[in-house]
């Protein structure tokens, strides 16, 4: 290591009094400001990630209500509870919310909360950018729901196929609001992805070389790279759609040489990786839970890392399997069928590694582990239903039937929501300092597990029977009534399961038993600090001696001192070997990210109605960014050590 060792008198056991004063000074420097202003100006990764998680759950609840309304409508034939126009808005906003306002922001927020603590640093690499990302996401979400509540909700389906979504068949502003919501969420997603990548590459605890990075963190890094490549495609496509509608460009207008299939290519080049952007973080969460509850490190670390990376790459070669019902060359269809099958290999390797871990460990089946088992079961059914769709002739039969909603819900509830709920039960003690009720946890798990199957298995059967998706009702003599009623009863079970979960959260927040620093005996660094973690995460930056940071050292942890305690300073380490390299001062709380987000909001929302909005809003955004880039007031005793490159 390049840093010099401490003089002899400073090493050894820390004096408890002195460590308390270190905590006190760091607390003073790192805490948020008081009151509402402090809330608006926070740049702390945990504050922002937590509010982002709560926001994403709120959108999840709204989308759940939309789903419940749709199931109520479909429970019996020829129901008149909801009319066709409202129904179109409901399924479009439900899908768009779940994809863009719940799933991606949620997995990224979980990453932004835990990655910095797991790798032993005090904050994300760009704290203000992080705050900016949250505000932009919030504005985008509020825009969509303001539209829905004023009967202007998008109604063209969450993948917005043209020509239906084009100016000719969707007049009004509904589709424009959808397109701009996409822009907001893509900005937020790209920002969060850069945060994760740079924080992991440059701020790992000394000793945490790349081959010791926790699997959860690896998953989040792979997801983030995928976001950087995939999200710009949907942002560009939705901008083209908005321009076709606003200033009469002809990207998708066949009459003027444009192409409807261009939309599908651009959209699915994003949206297929999107499935894995949502699913790979689930893999990371499962790896954390499996290690802790099997009480051994995950078997096959290298195999899982390589599998995760290869899933990331392969997922970009599959998008055309969403387009098998379009006139594609046969070679193309065969290629994408093969590529779709190939991704089973790394996924299989990962699942076998977990099974080997559970098999050779001493597993205990607390609620988080139950969700892992539930995930494996549901995801397998999702995968098997996907096999039908990967066969081109079968796909032609099943396209646009209820088989698709059945399949995607098995995959996403199994692959993302179940790991997420496992992670919720697993990390709740760390975030709140209190344990959740195991009994209620198990009750809600079983309700949800049974509920998913009762809701979505009938949908697979309905699809096979030919019931189209996205219809607001059906005739009695189709014979689809029984299965639809079953599916709606399942949705009721899901609602009850979620309600029990909410009750469990509320009760535990109010009166759960104190968790202590490490209730499960975890292996990664977040369990080394108190629950919840202090604003600065670590009084001294820990030094890592193995893959399982806390299991490799059972007593005191070696650590790095010498970072300043009178300002926000973080340690930067080298990218591969994580050797201490430099110190970096972080900004204090500031309102500027919120102002920049508001300016971005003005740009994009005004732009829905008039192109001049882009110019005016763009100028405002530049002003906000200027304030952002302007140096903060210099603090006393600033002494920069500059290392001039040779």
């Amino acid at each position, binding site marked *: 290591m390049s*840093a010099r060792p401490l003089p002899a008198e400073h090493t050894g056991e820390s004096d408890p009094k002195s460590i308390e004063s270190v905590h006190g000074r760091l607390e003073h420097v790192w805490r948020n400001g008081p009151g509402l202003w402090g809330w608006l100006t926070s740049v702390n990764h945990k504050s922002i990630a937590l509010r982002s998680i709560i926001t994403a759950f709120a959108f999840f609840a709204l989308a759940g209500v939309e789903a419940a309304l749709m199931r109520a409508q479909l429970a019996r034939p020829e129901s008149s509870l909801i009319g066709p126009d409202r129904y179109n808005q409901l399924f479009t906003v439900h899908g768009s919310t779940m994809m863009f306002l719940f799933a991606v922001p949620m997995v990224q927020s979980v990453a932004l909360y835990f990655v910095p603590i797991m790798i032993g640093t005090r904050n994300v690499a760009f704290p203000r950018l992080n705050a900016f990302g949250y505000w932009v996401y919030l504005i985008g979400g509020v825009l969509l729901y303001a539209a829905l509540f004023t009967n202007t909700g998008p109604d063209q389906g969450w993948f917005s196929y043209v020509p239906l979504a084009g100016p000719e068949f969707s007049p009004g502003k509904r589709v424009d609001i959808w397109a701009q919501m996409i822009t907001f969420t893509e900005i937020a997603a*790209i920002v969060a992805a850069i945060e994760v990548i740079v924080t992991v590459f440059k701020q790992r605890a000394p000793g945490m070389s790349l081959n010791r990075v926790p699997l959860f963190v690896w998953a989040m890094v792979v997801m983030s790279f995928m976001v950087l490549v995939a999200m710009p495609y949907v942002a560009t496509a939705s901008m083209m759609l908005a321009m076709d509608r606003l200033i009469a460009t002809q990207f998708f207008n066949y009459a003027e040489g444009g192409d409807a299939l261009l939309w599908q290519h651009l959209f699915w080049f994003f949206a297929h990786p999107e499935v894995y952007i949502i699913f790979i973080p689930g893999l990371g969460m499962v790896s954390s839970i499996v290690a802790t509850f099997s009480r051994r490190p995950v078997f096959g670390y290298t195999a899982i890392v390589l599998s995760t990376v290869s899933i990331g790459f392969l997922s970009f070669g599959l998008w055309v399997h969403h387009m098998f019902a379009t006139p594609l060359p046969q070679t193309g269809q065969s290629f994408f069928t093969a590529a779709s099958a190939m991704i089973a290999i790394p996924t299989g390797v990962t699942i076998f590694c977990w099974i080997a871990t559970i098999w050779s460990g001493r597993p205990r089946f607390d609620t988080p582990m139950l969700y892992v088992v539930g995930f494996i079961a549901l995801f397998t059914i999702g995968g098997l239903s996907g096999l039908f769709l990967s066969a081109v002739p079968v796909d032609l039969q099943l396209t646009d039937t209820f088989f698709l909603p059945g399949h995607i819900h098995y995959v996403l509830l199994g692959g993302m929501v179940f790991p997420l709920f496992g992670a919720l039960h697993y990390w709740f003690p760390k975030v709140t300092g209190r344990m959740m009720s195991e009994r209620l946890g198990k009750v809600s798990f079983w309700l949800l597990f049974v509920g998913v199957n009762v809701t979505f298995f009938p949908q697979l059967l309905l699809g096979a029977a030919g019931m189209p998706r996205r219809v607001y009702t059906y005739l009695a003599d189709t014979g689809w009534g029984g299965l639809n009623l079953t599916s709606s009863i399942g949705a009721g079970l899901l609602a009850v399961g979620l309600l029990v979960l909410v009750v469990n959260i509320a009760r535990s927040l109010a009166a759960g038993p104190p968790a*202590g620093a490490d209730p*499960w005996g975890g292996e990664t660094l977040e369990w080394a600090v108190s629950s919840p973690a202090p604003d600065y995460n670590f009084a001294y930056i820990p030094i890592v001696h193995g893959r399982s940071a806390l299991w490799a050292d059972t007593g005191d942890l070696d650590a790095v001192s010498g970072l300043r305690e009178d300002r926000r300073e973080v340690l930067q380490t080298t990218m591969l070997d994580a050797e201490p390299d430099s*110190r970096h001062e972080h900004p204090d709380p500031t309102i500027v990210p919120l102002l920049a987000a508001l300016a971005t909001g003005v740009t994009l929302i005004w732009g829905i109605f008039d192109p001049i909005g882009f110019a005016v809003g763009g100028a405002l955004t530049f002003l906000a960014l200027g304030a952002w880039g302007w140096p903060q007031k210099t603090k006393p005793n600033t002494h920069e050590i500059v290392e001039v490159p040779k």
Partner: protein
Amino acid sequence: MTVVGEIPIETGREAERPLRPVVNASDLPSVVYGSRVVTWWGTVGFMLAEAATLSACLVAYYYVLRNYESWPPLRTPPPDLFVPTISLVVLILSLVPCYLFARAAKRLDKPATVRWMWAAVVMMLIATGLRLMEFSSLNVRWDANAYASVAWAVVFAHFTLLLADTLETLLFAVVMQTREPTRYYSGVAEDAFYSYFMVAVWIPCYVTVYLVPRWV
């Protein structure tokens, strides 16, 4: 405490783990350059996302091209070459002051840094002005047909990068002129790094929009 294999694993712990300082970081530098600094990696991240955006526009261009028998479409003149080529040359030449201010910034040489930054700002402002003229060099309005739309999309998408980079360099120049915070020197060097990228990605766009219609 239980032991699995070689690793002893506890089942839970109330208190946080004590940290024992054994290494002192107070002598580490606070201003470093290149891939040692987070902004360099942040810039790389944005480059990746922006390259993906431009690639999406180029994909759209070549996808739409297949729909036409002739490119540009009948009765649509090909774009002019004069202004776009001048603009390309100015852009490439603007990298010279960029390189020089980055080099000066790494030596903490304020006069040279500021001087070359202003030179870069002037050249980039000229390039931005030329880019605005380029839209009329396309010889077709964005809404004429899909050819026009994709050509405008490529030029406009890159225009946003050029504008952002110009404004960023301008901002940095003002800060360095008036404040000169030591820690900004590394950011100044990253700004030049971004300009290299911005000019490099323009080259395939230039070839696509201005030369391909003359070749196919």
